């Protein structure tokens, strides 16, 4: 289902209309109400080639945001963007993808399935008409819409000169809050995002940091603490990310038990795995 929304129509999101150069019209894919674009939204953006840490944080942060009823906006790129959409979908949340090409093009191609899932309840939008090819010079323009639709922008991981920093520039220009997830100071993947922190961006350490920034107060119950061996694993992971083998050695548990406990913790949203390394999510 493809719609076109012109500037000036009542359902054109007022937040977006308030920016310096709002798009004249938006092409929209997905059956959801257009009112979705006007709801409180947070952009979660970052590196395409992100680390497993960035991947896990993007996903769990978006999941928590979705649970708090916030729309997650991102660019459907590989890496952090894709994880942001996935995290929101995982929590049954609504998510908006802004493309730098026609909305009928699944770009990147590997995200065709993701695009389909986003469209089930969320929306895919673009200022370009269907059929327009993706091109490098269209992405910065796309980023102004990402920032424009959002109350705040969270940068998860960005190299120096990352496209995510362009989104940040737009956000600052448009008066949106910018939050940054701190990264390892030794990692080039976080050089750009950590530099933002030095410039005074607010650190996003918990989902509450983000929610406070956009003025949403949510009463959330702390998830039940696991007991016994699960608690020991979680405690060990809170100190540092670890592989299953390292956990087995640290806790003295058998590999089989570690595997089984980790899956329970993962299903409870407390830990996430990437490239064989487990780490706690921000919900833990």
């Amino acid at each position, binding site marked *: 289902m493809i719609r076109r929304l012109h500037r000036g129509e009542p359902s054109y999101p007022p937040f977006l209309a308030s920016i310096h150069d709002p798009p004249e019209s938006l092409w929209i894919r997905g059956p959801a109400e257009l009112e979705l674009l006007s709801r409180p939204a947070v952009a979660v953006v970052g590196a395409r*080639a992100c680390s497993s840490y960035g991947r896990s944080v993007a996903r769990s942060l978006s999941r928590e945001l979705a649970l708090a009823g916030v729309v997650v906006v991102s660019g459907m790129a590989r890496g952090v963007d894709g994880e942001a959409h996935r995290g929101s979908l995982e929590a049954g949340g609504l998510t908006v993808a802004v493309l730098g090409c026609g909305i009928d093009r699944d770009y*990147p191609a590997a995200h065709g399935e993701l695009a389909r899932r986003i469209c089930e309840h969320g929306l895919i939008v673009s200022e370009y008409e269907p059929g327009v090819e993706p091109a490098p010079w269209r992405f910065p323009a796309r980023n102004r819409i990402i920032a424009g639709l959002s109350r705040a922008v969270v940068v998860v991981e960005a190299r120096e000169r990352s496209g995510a920093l362009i989104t940040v520039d737009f956000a600052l220009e448009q008066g949106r809050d910018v939050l940054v997830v701190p990264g390892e100071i030794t990692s080039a993947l976080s050089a750009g995002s950590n530099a933002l922190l030095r410039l005074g961006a607010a650190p996003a350490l918990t989902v509450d940091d983000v929610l406070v920034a956009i003025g949403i107060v949510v009463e959330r119950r702390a998830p039940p603490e696991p007991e016994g061996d699960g608690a020991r694993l979680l405690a060990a992971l809170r100190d540092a990310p670890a592989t299953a083998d390292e956990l087995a050695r640290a806790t003295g548990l*058998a*590999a089989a038990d570690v*595997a*089984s406990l980790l*899956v329970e913790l993962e299903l409870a949203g407390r830990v996430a*795995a990437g490239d064989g390394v487990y780490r706690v999510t921000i919900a833990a």
Partner: protein
Amino acid sequence: MVARALTHALVGLDARRVEVEAHLQAGIPGFAIVGLADRACQEAKHRVRSGITSASLEWPNKRITVNLAPAALRKEGSGFDLSIALAVLAASGQVPAVRLWEHAVVGELALDGRVRPVGGTIALAEGARRNGFERVLCAAESAPEAGLAGVEAVPVRHLAEAVAYLRGEEAIDPAQPPELEESALETPDLADVRGQERGRRALELAAAGSHNLLLVGPPGTGKTMLARRLPGILPPLTRDEALEVTRIHSVAGVLPASRPLVTNPPFRAPHHGVSAAAVVGGGTVPRPGEASLAHRGVLLLDEMPEFPRNVLEALRQPLEEGFVAVSRVGGAAIFPARFALIGTMNMCPCGGRGDPAVECRCSAQRIVAYRERLSRALLDRFDLVVAMPRPRATELAAAPGEPSRAVRERVVAARRRLNEQPAGRTAAASELLDRAVERLPLSGRGRARVARVARTVAALAGSDAVESEHLAEALSYRSPRDLPEA
């Protein structure tokens, strides 16, 4: 004057009866072989003639025609030499024709008359037994192998010895077939693997449940080392299995003369430069490939994404059906190929990902391209996917691991349990699986795979039912999660 000798030709693993007829007639001396004989078979003329003269026998100065019947069956190789020589000798009255016809004959001749072994002797001997021949005349080296087929294998080292035997001048004791005894472990032991608890556990599950295993991690984390130790924890081959494996290895010509009976589960690790025909079998006269040589054992594809796509896709038939069908104009051959597949791969093309000491510079597109060299259909065949990142702390200080022997005892017990009664799932386990399907990307096939692995986990734990912790462990090996995503 016509004399006949009986031999066999291989079609795949099957031996077809071939009668060698030698006809001597007056005329200009000459020697012709007819009956769809290939090049190696045509060259038998020279070997046979040299062999006969070297054995101080007389080469009949006649017009000699040798016919290999049935003429429609393609004959290949040098295994007809001995039978052709003996048929010629019988036709010229130097060997009793009736006594020759009591034997099936197989063997290649050297120019000095020695008898050389040929591949597939056990299959040929089985063919002889099926055709009602109880004695097989063959090279001394391959006689124990022929004996495995349940025939009286008469070992001959030289054409002269064969002639003396057939004339009744010399008695030869039939060869004793080798016993089914486990050879001293020629596979490396799991005790050498320090640390790698998760990898070891996955290996044990793979052995117990016959699951295919994919190990993913940066170079040097012990993926190959672990994979090479799988044969050592597989249950030993039964006698029937050993014979079946021996037949394949014999036909492929890789059976060592010193060890005529394959008693350990075989291990094959073709290099990634291999062709599709070499992996699944092929050739004008079909020969078994690596997949069949790994039958009842382990096939390791090291650095799997480096294998040509057509090779990987060709493996889908054996992985699904447990055999390879090679169709040729001359007929189809079926080679059994039921093996445990172990694949290894890096987390990214440069190999740096998953290694804290190296910064991976692969772009997302390159990682995706690397992963996509393995089709989803192939990835779906792996029940167990295990990431093996490089540990930060050194693991070399860890104590030696459990030896293979101890692991194998558990594997054997678990297999018995799996065969006797498949365990049912408890309600809690089913509930966990439903929850996981909701939460994780798990296809219908993925769900079945998890359930299968969970049964193996339960069997290894000696449990009568699949409990939720068994299912949870099975979920931890589900395919897509441990593969690098882009």
